[in-house]
């Protein structure tokens, strides 16, 4: 329990899903918990209204590419990643976007919540690529269950999520907490047409409620998973923050942590944070959990330098900030000859995982093919008007394209490369005088091989759907899946945290989030991060 000389039993840096899970768990056990969040609290209805009032309504990546911004606030002390906050270096632009608000980036995630499959943990030993995890699927299975219950995952039991159309995979000891949503007309039609070509349809497990789940209503198919679920049917991290606060945790918003301090014995002694007025504050605790997103967590460790820790905190291995990964992908737009009606139901559900696992992984990366279920009407219409279409011709084109244009995308498994990394800028600083993150990113021929193989699949899909290919984008699309920057390993010389997510260098500090993933698979990483966070909470409950 809290000793008088400590401000808290546990300080959690970052109020997203990862920090929220740990904070709620510890607060429920009666521990004194303080959560520090750089950004402000937001109200759902205000975000919804800002989005509604915005003239441009696009998916996350497009919104950023076109400078449309985000309905979430951008404040001088916590600038939005949609603006010019992030700096990019290297051959590939790591054009990501995450949210600096209470509840974190899951506010705008599509809510895919996949488990990895057992082979994903053994990439090096099975296929000679990337890195193995120090733990395996069996070590995480029970925590996947608990994370699925915590986040409220909707899924289809008995599916082969390795994409081979076989028996249940990965093995599960618990059914999904909620039954899968009904498939829309488009998903059903596509699944039928592609099965002829050997594409095994898989329905994505996700965080949208299919029955009332706690306070969450049933997903109504608003098709608005990002930037914000207007009815709170989709999970986001604010829900665990709310639970933590109800159990006594204290949340300090607009509190930007800029320094972590360690003593001579290696233990973390305090964190320093700044308020928007640039005032500096210090807090200490028995334990610390860093859960500030793969980019901010790495940056914070790297700027926490001192004479004893010249490379920053938790960085004796020099791996902090390195091995930055993302499911860097490609996409293709196509026009079918019959109406498909994208836009009914949630923004994503149907995926193809034929290339999720196999001996090919020594030659090209594992990948996931998805069809986006977003509404293309506004974007299409803008194009038609630019072309000079008017009146009934315009109407006819809108009708045709809104019903028939499909967007397909592929996410590839990246390799951890030491040169791909997050560093604090030496030249650019935010309003508090803190360096902004610089992201260096590149891909290898392994990714290129995947791109070529993936394009073959997309063309085959166009053929099977009898669709005309409208455009193809192979320019390293960012998927906003940050991984690798504080990686896990048994050897303190080449990893940042151990198999329990405890930093090798500081026995009372853990890192929660997808940044600990040594390899990435090709699947959305949130649930894996959440399972690891539940596991961290268990460890903390034994020690505090």
């Amino acid at each position, binding site marked *: 329990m809290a000793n008088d000389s400590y401000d808290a039993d546990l300080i959690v840096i970052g109020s997203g899903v990862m920090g929220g899970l740990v904070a709620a768990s510890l607060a429920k056990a009666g521990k004194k918990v303080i959560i520090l969040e750089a950004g402000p*609290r*937001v*109200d*759902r*209805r*205000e975000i*919804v*209204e800002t989005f*509604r*009032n915005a003239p441009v309504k696009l998916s996350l990546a497009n919104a950023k590419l076109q400078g449309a911004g985000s309905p979430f606030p951008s404040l001088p002390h916590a600038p939005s990643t949609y603006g010019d906050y992030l700096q990019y270096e290297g051959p590939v632009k790591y054009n990501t976007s995450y949210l600096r608000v209470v*509840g974190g980036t899951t506010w705008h995630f599509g809510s895919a919540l996949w488990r990895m499959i057992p082979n994903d943990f053994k990439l090096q030993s099975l296929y000679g690529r990337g890195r193995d995890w120090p733990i395996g699927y069996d070590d995480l299975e029970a925590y996947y269950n608990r994370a699925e219950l915590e986040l409220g995952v909707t899924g289809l039991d008995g599916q082969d999520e390795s994409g081979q159309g076989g028996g249940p995979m990965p093995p599960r000891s618990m059914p999904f907490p909620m039954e899968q949503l009904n498939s829309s007309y488009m998903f059903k039609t596509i699944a039928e047409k592609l099965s002829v070509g050997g594409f095994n349809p898989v329905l994505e497990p996700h965080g949208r409620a299919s*029955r*009332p789940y706690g*306070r*969450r*209503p*049933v997903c*109504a198919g*608003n098709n608005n998973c990002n930037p914000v679920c*207007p*009815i*709170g049917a989709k999970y986001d991290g*604010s*829900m665990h*923050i*709310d639970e933590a*606060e109800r159990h006594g945790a204290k949340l300090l918003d607009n509190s930007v942590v800029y320094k972590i301090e360690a003593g001579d014995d290696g233990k973390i002694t305090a964190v320093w944070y700044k308020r928007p007025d640039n005032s500096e504050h210090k807090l200490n605790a028995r334990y610390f959990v860093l859960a500030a997103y793969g980019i901010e967590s790495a940056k914070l460790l790297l700027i926490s330098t001192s004479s004893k820790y010249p490379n920053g905190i938790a960085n004796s291995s020099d791996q902090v900030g390195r091995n930055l990964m993302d499911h860097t992908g490609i996409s293709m737009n196509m026009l079918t000859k019959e109406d498909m009606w994208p836009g009914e139901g949630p923004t994503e559900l149907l995926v193809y995982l034929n290339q999720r696992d196999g001996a090919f992984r020594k030659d090209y990366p594992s990948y996931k093919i998805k069809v986006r279920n977003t509404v293309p009407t506004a974007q299409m219409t803008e194009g038609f008007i630019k072309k000079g279409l008017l009146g009934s011709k315009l109407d006819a084109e809108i009708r045709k394209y809104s019903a028939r244009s499909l967007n397909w995308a592929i996410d590839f498994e990246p390799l951890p490369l030491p040169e791909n990394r997050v560093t604090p800028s030496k030249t650019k600083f935010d309003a508090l005088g803190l360096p902004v993150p610089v992201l260096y990113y590149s891909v290898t021929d392994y990714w290129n091989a995947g791109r070529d193989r993936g394009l073959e699949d997309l063309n085959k899909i166009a053929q099977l759907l009898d669709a005309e290919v409208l455009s193809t984008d192979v320019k390293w699309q960012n998927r906003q899946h940050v991984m690798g920057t504080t990686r896990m390993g048994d050897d303190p010389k080449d990893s940042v945290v151990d198999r329990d997510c405890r930093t090798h260098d500081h026995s009372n500090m853990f890192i929660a989030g997808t940044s600990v993933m040594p390899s990435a698979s090709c699947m959305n990483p949130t649930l894996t991060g959440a399972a690891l966070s539940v596991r961290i909470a268990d460890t903390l409950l034994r020690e505090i």
Partner: protein
Amino acid sequence: MPPYCGFFESPSVKAVLFRYSSTARSVVIGLFAACSLVGTVCAQDASRPQAELIARGRYLAMAADCAACHTAPEGGQPYAGGYGIQSPLGTIFSTNITPSKVNGIGEYTEADFARAVRAGVAKDGTHLYPAMPFTAYAKLSDTDISALYAFFKNEVKPVDQASRKTELPFPFSIRASMAVWNMLFLSNERFQPDAARSADWNRGAYLAEALEHCSTCHTPRNLFMAEDTRSALSGGTVGPWSAPNITSDKTSGIGGWSDAELLQYLRTGHVAGKAQAAGPMAEDVEHSLQHLTDADLRALVTYLRGTKPVASSDKQPRYSFGKPSASEASLRGLPGQAPAENGFHVFSGACANCHQADGSGNAHYPSLFNNTATGADNPDNLISTILFGLNRTVDGVPVFMPAFGPDASFTDRLSDKDVADVSNYVLSQFGNAAVKVGPEDVARVREGGRKPFLALAAPYIAPIAVVVAVILLVFIGLVVARGRRRVAPA
């Protein structure tokens, strides 16, 4: 939160029971006598096949909606109690009525059971609070009591789990006061069929008055919280919720509903263009009404059609207000700082996603016009729905509206002012524009609704009693002293 249902026992008041007035004692003795009669009747019925009796009891228990209060929400064991019923006098916890010998009614004879259900007195003599609708159940026939007893004894799984003790504040903590209350307000008469009416009507009357206990919520209560039978079914309050007038009155009641609409409402809790069941009525539909046979539901409709019309203050039927609103186009994008606009902004951000910007709803969500919650002459159900949400599962399909009150996540929680503003926007655009809501109304609903006289008077009852006692003592002292003085010279 159905406010009224439950058995209650509290050993702490047993001592008080011995201080009964002789009148109360004779009432209790009378009840004992009545119960022994019941026992005789049951003995005769024992010849009926037991399985049929139990099946009948199962249906009756459902029609009487025992489970709604006697099963704790979110995974409570069936009939093991523990549901906190919000009464205006404090939270009353329902008891374990499984046949557990330790914590339930395992040791109850049928006579004990009958006395508890119909007279509100537990086996050990403690009085039940009228959260248990024994004034309605008093009308249950002996044969139905037998069937219920057979069901509870033989089919309900015993659960050895004590339910939470009810601890109402003084003076309501004195359960013996219920003896006096029962003397005044409890009729020990069984249901008497009306020979002048159809069999269907009589069945409906029995269902409504004895089993479904409609009057428990829908009949207004007097100063002592007893039902005011002169204006039966003309509307009452149930904690924060308002139970509307359901008499046959064309304007204030259900006189303007078709038979088919009434039947659908009882069966599903929803009729588009009329009303939807929330709060305790949603629980009743979920646990009880949807499971009734069509014949019984039709009988209920026949009965409701034939009740004495009682007019309330409504000028037009509650469901007849409003139309789609076009204000979206003129208000969209405005700054939202002006007081009148806040209601629109809350509506647009928190309500319009489901109920649609023009308020007309869709196949899954009710319209906000032609809706009794927005057309009523008091805003309690509108405010309650916003604060507490709605949850009703019919035919296995949940109907759910999230709460925007204290249970909501901080990201969705609305202040009293926000609820008042959005209520006023909704009332002015879609409902009864004459009704206005202030933050103080929202605060009142948040705190459990309109307080009855007894609850308001509670803090003064003890001091008044003390003052009266002191005056009495002084008076007695004076009389005695005078007497002594008079005696002294002798």
